[in-house]
């Protein structure tokens, strides 16, 4: 964004990209372990009934918090990656501004929508 131009320069965005990648490695590993490597896959995918079923994972604060972190990390990492690809494909002020705003809007929607899922599912 225009007012962050001095601080959020390209090299720092790429550092954030790399460290969000490491964040995904940790929180994503926890997510995958909870689905695939503890209990049975069928039970973990069912709504309730198991220790690691869908609703039980949301109700556990630590697991829900991990999901929220994973959501934020992946939203940043994925959409910054797409931004890098699109800006390498074609250059121009108009194009780069459009790419930035459109991708930021989609990423923000996904973070809000995913956070809503986590918060509401905890209250079910």
């Amino acid at each position: 964004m225009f007012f962050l131009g001095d601080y959020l320069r390209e090299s720092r965005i790429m550092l954030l990209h790399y460290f969000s990648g490491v964040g995904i490695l940790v929180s994503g590993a926890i997510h995958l372990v909870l689905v695939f490597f503890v209990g049975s896959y069928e039970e973990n995918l069912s709504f309730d009934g198991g220790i690691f079923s869908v609703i039980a994972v949301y109700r556990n604060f630590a697991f829900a918090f991990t999901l929220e972190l994973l959501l934020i990390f992946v939203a940043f990492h994925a959409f910054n990656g797409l931004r890098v690809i699109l800006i390498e494909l074609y250059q121009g002020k108009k194009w780069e501004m459009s790419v930035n705003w459109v991708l930021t809007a989609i990423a923000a929607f996904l973070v809000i929508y995913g956070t809503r899922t986590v918060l509401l599912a905890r209250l079910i």
Partner: protein
Amino acid sequence: MSSSAKRTPPPPVYKARRASLLRSWLWPARSNLGRWAYTMQRVSGVGVSLYFLAHIIETGNVVGGLSMWSVPAYDIAKNNWNNTVDFLKNPLFDLGLVIIGFLLTFHTFNGLRLFFSEFGYGIGKPARPDYPYKPKSQNTLQDLIIWLSAILAALAAVYALNVLFG
């Protein structure tokens, strides 16, 4: 410059160059392994991003999707979730998950290689280029990690096949 001055359209050669750029991204023929890893990293990144988009929409169904913005009743939420799982339980989506497992694993391990390279680990010290001018950064370790990523990705795909179809 008057405001009515027409902007000259870009010469058609730019369009042709963009198309050839895309082609050389997606199929870097006669390139080394690192260049192939670059393409794979991008293709897998875009693939997993698309899955992320679908996954957030899919899991949002547990609380009623876009149509409901309050806490749903327990039975309604359970019904929503079971409907979503039933809808997604078919060979086409399962095959998609196998491919996502492959792409995600490759992206993870190749991404770790890039993480360490970014901070200078595993690419050798800077040195004077001498004949035959082989870049020190493109060394055996880098190639090994790229192949290892591909092998682990294949193993992840086999694991996913076993879970989903076995």
